[in-house]
């Protein structure tokens, strides 16, 4: 179990790092939505190129991006492997009953490029500012207060719970427990989860007392000393322009 250190390169300096968080979130989100909805491979490649360009501008280490992108493999690999074989269409290659179709391949490739472009953009967005700045900016972008507060508190307590989990886990290991996927092994995991829930519940009551002791009444809770500059507006217009371009491009190109 690893700590979620998504913002460990937030201290770097680059044009992307310097963008005002609200502007960055807004324009990147538009760009990401645009990238995942492009309808053909050339447009997708263009989106990917834009994403990579922004990534290079951001100076995030390539290793960080590669490591962080692995979760999408779970979805993308099966698609890349299965679709060309299972989608009916023009075979480009076949051996006996197994046929590799053009339609399947091009759809799989389109999805893969979109997925890669999206994750590159997501990582550039999240990797270039502290996660707190992201959450704070969301609160200024009128995401409802309940959601914002929960994101703040949950984010904070993930770390506390992880430490708690790891201590229970080491204590189990110290008594010779190894996780095997059998009934005994899993029911012990059940106890561990149960213990974690009970401890969290009790902690939650103490946390609430702590908040109440500081006048908490469910109201929004942060100040965000961000200020938007002309350069930020310009970058925002540029990125949203690109996002629009990605949608318009297939129409124009056809």
């Amino acid at each position, binding site marked *: 179990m690893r700590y979620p250190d998504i913002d460990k390169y937030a201290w770097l300096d680059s044009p992307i790092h310097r963008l005002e968080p609200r502007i960055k979130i807004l324009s990147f989100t538009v760009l990401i939505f645009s990238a*995942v909805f492009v309808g053909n491979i050339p447009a997708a490649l263009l989106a990917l190129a834009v994403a990579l360009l922004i990534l290079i501008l951001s100076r995030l280490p390539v290793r960080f991006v590669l490591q962080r992108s692995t*979760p999408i493999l779970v979805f993308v690999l099966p698609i890349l492997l299965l679709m060309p074989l299972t989608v009916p269409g023009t075979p480009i290659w076949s051996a006996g009953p197994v046929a590799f179709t053009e339609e399947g391949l091009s759809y799989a490739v389109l999805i893969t490029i979109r997925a890669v472009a999206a994750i590159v953009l997501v990582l550039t967005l999240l990797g270039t500012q502290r996660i707190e700045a992201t959450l704070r900016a969301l609160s200024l972008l009128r995401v409802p207060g309940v959601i914002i507060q929960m994101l703040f508190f949950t984010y904070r307590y993930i770390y506390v719970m992880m430490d708690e989990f790891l201590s229970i886990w080491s204590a189990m290991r110290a008594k010779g427990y190894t996780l095997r996927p059998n009934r005994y092994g899993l029911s012990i995991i059940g106890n561990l989860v149960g213990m974690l829930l*009970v401890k969290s519940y009790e902690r939650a*009551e103490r946390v609430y007392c702590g908040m109440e002791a500081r006048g908490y009444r469910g109201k929004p809770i942060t100040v965000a000393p961000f200020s938007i500059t002309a350069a930020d507006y310009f970058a925002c217009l540029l990125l949203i322009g690109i996002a629009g371009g990605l949608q318009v491009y297939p129409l124009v190109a056809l």
Partner: protein
Amino acid sequence: MHISDGVLPMPVIVAGWVITIILLAGTLRWAAKKGDIAREIPKLSVMAGAFFVASLIHIDIPPSSAHLILNGLVGVVLGPLSYLALFIGLTLQALLFQHGGITVIGINTVNVGIPALICYLAFLAGSKRGIPLPAIGGVCGGLGVLLTVVLLVLVLVVSGDQFFAVAGLLAGAHLPIAVAEAIVTGAVVGYLVRVKPELLPIPLKGEKK
């Protein structure tokens, strides 16, 4: 299993967000009517953190290997507000670990959140009939995953015929997880019954001691 960005077509993604927003607004309104939301938020947040961490537990069941989902358990413990907790959990998973994309948080929440709500109702119904709680817990644990798989397959199939094979593969890979979650959730509920029954939606047996 949480879908990544770039896979699903626009209508499905939009539908996901619409359903999620409606359900969030509905459950929040319900909570505000039932009690003090200022009190619920910290509790829900800490519990959401605990579930988040528990769902990072990695279980290798050859040939597949997966993280627990625990949405059945979340439903049983948090009731209607489980939808909100899962939404927060998925958002943070997308932000912190890139488990699942950000454009698909809506649809991913539908996939795990609706089963959680159903599990809550199932647990209530089961406990009223006097079935042993760990057994209902186990059923809810397995049911949570199975319903999630059903919804996932549905989403993929609606998204296009191309996804048929992929959907089948994912469904197959999840069956062992459903069994594992049933055992884990049964054990959790058994533990909670003994140690902290307040966490379960059951009437407490008067005062102890």
